[in-house]
């Protein structure tokens, strides 16, 4: 606990390019970018596979295999091969981390949409895409958001390892602290990342209230 107080009470940690606010911004920047890219890949693929049922086995198996990829190894390898300088290299492993939960949940949610509901929608004259976007996706929304939440929390938590190869973000406090035996920095960084991950989790719970239709919410509970 004393370590944490030392860290937070130190004014040097609160300003400039190496201060906490700047590190939080960096952290959120590449976490957010990775999540956005992952959603752009996983949402359409998950919806398409869930709605048509085609390629389901391949999608689920490769999503599961992607979970096995060690992020630290990928970060180190990508940066070693392509060089540091930009944040682009570190995005690849983070996107690989975020795609599986979003893809699998979107797929399961859309596939699990009640067949009777879909029949009713077709009976009302909806076209295929209309059934998908106005019936299946809203019904799948709680699961899709759960997948996004899992992905977001994992990305924020894992983005710390980017600091090992010299990138910014909150991982810097942890890695630098480990290397200089400055435990107040290490512990402070660890606590900040945990708080940030919890905040992201909370933001998604709030988003769920806004984005899930009241009818579906009553059903799912």
């Amino acid at each position, binding site marked *: 606990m004393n*370590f944490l107080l030392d860290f937070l009470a130190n004014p040097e940690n609160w300003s400039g390019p190496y201060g906490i606010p700047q590190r939080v911004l960096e952290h959120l920047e590449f976490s957010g970018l990775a999540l956005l890219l992952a959603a752009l890949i996983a949402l359409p693929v998950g919806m398409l596979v869930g709605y048509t049922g085609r390629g389901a086995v391949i999608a689920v198996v490769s999503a*599961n*295999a992607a*979970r*096995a*990829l*060690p*992020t*630290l*190894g*990928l970060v*180190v*390898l990508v940066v*070693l*091969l392509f060089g540091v300088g930009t944040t682009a290299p570190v995005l690849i492993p983070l996107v690989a981390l975020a795609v599986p939960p979003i893809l699998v949940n979107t797929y399961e949610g859309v596939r699990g949409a009640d067949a009777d509901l879909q029949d009713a929608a077709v009976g009302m004259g909806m076209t295929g895409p209309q059934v998908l976007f106005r019936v299946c996706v809203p019904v799948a929304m709680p699961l899709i958001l759960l997948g996004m939440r899992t992905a977001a*929390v994992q990305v*924020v*938590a*894992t983005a*710390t*390892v980017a600091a*090992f*190869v010299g990138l910014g973000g909150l*991982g810097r406090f*942890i*890695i630098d*602290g*480990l290397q200089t035996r400055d*435990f107040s920095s*290490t*512990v402070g*960084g*660890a*606590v900040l*990342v*945990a708080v940030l*991950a*919890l905040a*992201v*989790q909370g933001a998604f719970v709030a988003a769920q209230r806004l984005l899930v239709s009241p009818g579906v919410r009553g059903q799912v509970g």
Partner: protein
Amino acid sequence: MAEEPLIRWDWIGRNADRIGGLLVDNVVMGLAPVAIGLVVALPVGLACARWRRLYQPTVGIINVIYSLPSLAVFVLLLNVFILATMPIVVVPLTFYALAVLIPAVVDGLGSVPDPVRQAATAMGFRPLRRLIQVELPIAVPVVIAGLRVATVSSISLVSVGALVGKGGLGHLFIDGWQRQFPTPIIVGIVLIVALAVLADGVLILAQRLLTPWARARRTA
């Protein structure tokens, strides 16, 4: 880097002993949390399925634990244990496994159709025997689905422990980075993915053996 080949095969041969040792470490530290997690998740999951009111708070606590970054928890435990030993990695990974396994046990028991439960009761099954002989076998597919996710992520997360000094194959990543030498990194990634895929395959096989009726239905 241009004259340097991506993989130097002779390095692998010369370091086979060390790689083997790290591989064993990785297996132990990756599987122990899942095994402990399953032993804990079964009673907790049963309790949550029996008393539904326990479930929401339990899931809440576990979700909070799940969102704690592994590196952060390793570091905090490093302060508690002082030395980098296996518990630093195994303890947090056990909690991550629990976060996946407890909901899996609860959902698995929830997947038992009510008529089946009633039929078992009508046939004279007492609650304990009904649980062991009817409900748990039916819950197997959902529980194993959870075990697969937990096992694969656990094996892969062990490597982050290398940053605090105990990380199985993850040490190869640190090695490769410090010497700017890609071979160990590639070897590490390939072995971790291979381990995870192997463990996943074993679990799929276990599911087939434990649920023979699923196959019978498919061929019928």
